[in-house]
Every structure is written in C-alpha cells, then in structure tokens.
C-alpha cells in the first residue's frame, strides 16, 4: 500500500524584504515579495527522502494561504512532490494559529494521510506550535523538531535535539512529524523538475468543501487579538572606532564605563 505523505508548506513574506503589518494589524502579504518558507523546504526534502526509501509513496503538498501561495506549492512540486492542495478562501484572511490549524487538519483528513511533515516554524509567525496542535487535532502521535528522521514498517523514528538532552523518538503511523534546519540541506529544483511541476495537479479547496464555517476562521474567528504594532525605535547610533592597535583596550574602557567589568 502506498505511503501517503502530506507536507504542510507556508507562503511567507521574504525575511530580507521590508516586512510590516497591514492596517488591520495582520501580516502584510501584498507589499512584500513572498516565497516558500525556507524552513518548509527542509520538510519537503525529508518527504522526498522518505518517499525514495519507501516501496511506493505519494507526496501531497498542502498550503493554506492567498492566491500567491500557489508559488510555494509550485516550488515544492518542482523539488519533486507529486501533487498539491491549495486551501484558499477570502474568509481565511487574518486567521491565527487555531484557525489555520483547524483548516489544515480538516484538509489533511480529507486528503487522506499516513504521515504529515511540517517545518519547525514559519519564518513570519515563528510560533513553532502548529505541528503539536495538528497532532492534537488529528489525534495522532507528535514526533516533532527532528534533526534526523526515518520511516520503516509503519514506524517513524527520529532524533530530537532538545535544550537539556538529545532524545531518540519512536511512534507508529499515522503521525505528525516536524523537522529542523539541521535535518539536511534541501535540494534545488532541477530544470526538469521545474518543467514537470507545470503539469502536476494543483487542487483548490474552499471552506465549504472542508465543512468549516466562516466564523470559525479569519480575523473575526481568531482566538487572539493584536491591539497594536509599532516599529521598534531605531537603536541610537553607537560609537564605532577603527582598531589602530588599541581597539581591545578601548572596548574594555567602554565596558567598564557601562559597569560590565
């Protein structure tokens, strides 16, 4: 039987661009160029490697996001994923992690899965909690923050490098896995991959198709509210000296003045 892998990928504003908030205090996704979150490339890469090892596997990439989020799906398809699902609905604008995770969980169930793979965190929201929430919602084991992952005979194993210990984990499928940027460099799409991606199927689903009411998601349906967002005041320009042989001593003098020594 085929191993059904669903990879959750997010379309995010480019971190090297001028990221900011829109008037309604949601992340502005219009004015800044977007791309497939770099941290989700690692998830796609691990899915491809797991599929290579399996006798028979199918990789579906899934995103919840605006029209442009198709770019993220295309990139994942050109890396080698088989097909894509784009959940898109005007009512989704402004969803928080509870709303997004609800939509992803319903979509994953509808698509059918043995293994869900996500990145460690999105590069815009940087919460890093969605994988755990997905596992809770789907009622399957959570095997998260792996720097190494393997799937064999219906079991997923992996290494989680935590703050105080490195742990070896094991769970039966179906399961939700998240991988870190220590899991191995993601491949670049080849020219052949890019051409092939153009012909791969991308399905579009809306909230109706997932039996989700508009009130459950979006800005109104969020369980959190952002009241204000302010640009951090620029740091006051500091003193910069060129080392002419005394740089270390000058720095020590500064640190002493600040009572660090």
């Amino acid at each position, binding site marked *: 039987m085929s191993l059904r892998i669903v990879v959750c990928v997010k379309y995010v504003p480019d971190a090297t661009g001028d990221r900011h908030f829109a008037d309604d205090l949601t992340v502005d996704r219009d004015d800044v160029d977007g791309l497939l979150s770099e941290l989700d490339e690692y998830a796609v890469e691990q899915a491809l490697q797991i599929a290579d090892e399996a006798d028979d596997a199918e990789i579906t990439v899934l995103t919840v996001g605006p029209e442009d989020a198709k770019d993220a799906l295309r990139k994942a398809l050109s890396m080698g994923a088989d097909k894509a699902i784009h959940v898109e609905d005007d009512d989704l604008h402004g969803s928080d992690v509870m709303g997004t995770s609800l939509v992803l969980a319903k979509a994953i169930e509808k698509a059918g899965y043995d293994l869900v793979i996500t990145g460690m965190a999105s590069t815009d929201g940087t919460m890093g909690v969605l994988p*755990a*929430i997905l596992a809770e919602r789907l009622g399957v084991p959570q095997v998260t923050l792996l720097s190494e992952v393997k799937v064999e005979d219906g079991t997923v194993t992996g290494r989680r490098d935590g703050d105080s210990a490195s742990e070896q984990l094991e769970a039966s499928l179906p399961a939700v896995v998240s991988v870190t940027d220590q899991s191995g460099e993601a491949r670049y799409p080849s020219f052949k991959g890019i051409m092939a991606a153009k012909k791969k199927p991308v399905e579009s689903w809306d909230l109706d198709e997932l039996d989700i009411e508009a009130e459950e998601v979006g800005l109104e349906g969020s369980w*959190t509210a952002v009241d204000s*967002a302010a640009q951090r005041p620029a740091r006051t320009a500091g003193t910069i000296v060129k080392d002419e042989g005394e740089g270390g001593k000058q720095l020590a003098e500064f640190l002493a003045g600040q009572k660090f020594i």
Partner: protein
Amino acid sequence: MAEVLVYVDHVDGAVRKPTLELLTLARRIGEPVAVALGAGAEATAAVLAEHGAVKVLTADAPEFTEYLVVPKVDALQAAYDAVSPAAVLVPSSAEGKEIAARLAVRIGSGIITDAIDLEAGDEGPVATQAAFAASFTTKSRVSKGTPVITVKPNSAPVEAAAAAGTVEALAVTFGALATGTKVTSRTPRESTGRPELTEAAIVVSGGRGVNGAENFGIIEELADSLGAAVGASRAAVDAGWYPHTNQVGQTGKSVSPQLYIASGISGAIQHRAGMQTSKTIVAINKDAEAPIFDLVDYGVVGDLFEVVPQLTGEIKARKG
C-alpha cells in the same frame, strides 16, 4: 484574587530562572499556583514559595520521561481543571510551547507565544511580543477562553515575594494519546560550566570570521573573563566549529542579555532575530560595512584575532 497557573521548568527539583521570572509576571495578574512535574517536583516548592507561589501542585510518573510532551499536557490540563485559573503561563522553551499549545486546543483557548512582557489589562492580560526579527513590537490579548501565554527568558526580573507554597499532590489520568510517542533513549548534554545561553546576563558570540573550531578558544576565553555564555552564528555551527545548541538566531536560541558581544558576525536578519533585543550590543568586525554595526552601542572595526585577545587581557587585568 484570581489564580494563575505557572508551569515549572526544573531539573530534578532545581527550578530554572525563567520560571521565577514567570512568577513575577503571574503576580501582576493574580495569585500564582505552580505546577511541577516529574522527579524532584516536591523539592521545587521552597524556592517557588519564596517567589510568590501560593500553592505547588506536584505529580510524578514514569510517563513524563518515557513519552514525549503529551503526558505533561494531561497533567497541566488536570491542574487547569482543578484550579480554573485566570491564565496559564508557560516558559517559552521548545517543549514549553508545545505543551501550552496542546493545552490551549483542549480547553478552547487562544495562545500567545514568546511574550517578552505581560501586564494586567481590562480585557485580560496584555502580552508584548517582538515580530519580524524584532523590528516590530506588538501588544496582543487572548480573546477566547483562558489566556495561555508562553514567555521568553529574561522578560522580567526575579523578585522575592514570600507566599505559602503549600504542596498538593495532583491526580493525573493519562489519556490514550499520552503514550503515542516513545522516548527510546536520552543523552543528556554535558555541562560546560558556563551559564545557560538564554538565561545569561552576558553572551559572547563568534561567527564565520572566527575561522575554525580551534579558534573558538579565544571566544571562550573572553566569555570566561566576563562569566558569559558562548553563542555562535549559523555559519559557524554549519561549519562544525561549535555545537548547534549554542546557535543564536531564528533557528537557534533567542537571547536577550544585558550585553551581547558579536565577533566575526555580519549580522544577517536571521541572526538579528535572536539577539536584537539585547540591552547593550557590541561588535568586532573587520568590515566597516557589516550590518551588525547598525545595531551596536560600541563597535570596533578590526581583526578579531587582534582585538579579542587584547580585550580579554584588559578585562583580566582590570578584574585583577
């Protein structure tokens, strides 16, 4: 007064500093009730009481160490059911965030992660967060359910405030999902004897400019002269010069010390994401155009192999 649940991060009964900071914040919104799990849970009570915990709920079971995250969620939920708190505060570690998030789903509450400050507000606690690599500061609330909020280390001072700290055993029944993910082995990290990176008052970091694992000795020597923790950029970590546990930045640790010293680090946005909220920032870099200099209070344009040893020598001389 409303009670506030505080999840305790401890190692065999030794409470880690971020939990004491949480107690300071919890007292702004109510009376802290601590939840300590695992081996040594009861031993946490004395220090928690000194910092304002009116009650300490404790539970120990093999499940907490043999399975990942979910047993702890079951226990925190048991505490939530017993107390009906006004808010739940959890330290923002990787595991803390996962525990908090799963609890939030179960109790139908919104979640805020990585708060850097917390105040009482008319419509519940108001959390301050840093967004977009700390270039923005936001204020948010949980608008549905009991606020579940995770707080970063170094977000509040540790304050003494004696309270009863009465120990009560917490009854926990584990659900079907608790044993879903087995921890088949655990290798504890070796202690370096240096302060914990996220908790340290001073962090000294090295980047690609350090140019080799063998050269990290000069970064460590500077750190030791200041009693600081050692950090590294991803470039230095990827090159294998320093362990990933010491990486500072978006995919490493986020630090907010009193003093951050960057040597041979250019200051890419992903690095800044993890250190931009430091109080005082100092950099040593031979390239005057390096973006790190936009952040500094004091910068030295020069060769780190000259500047850093001279600095270390001078610090040692001054300290006698």
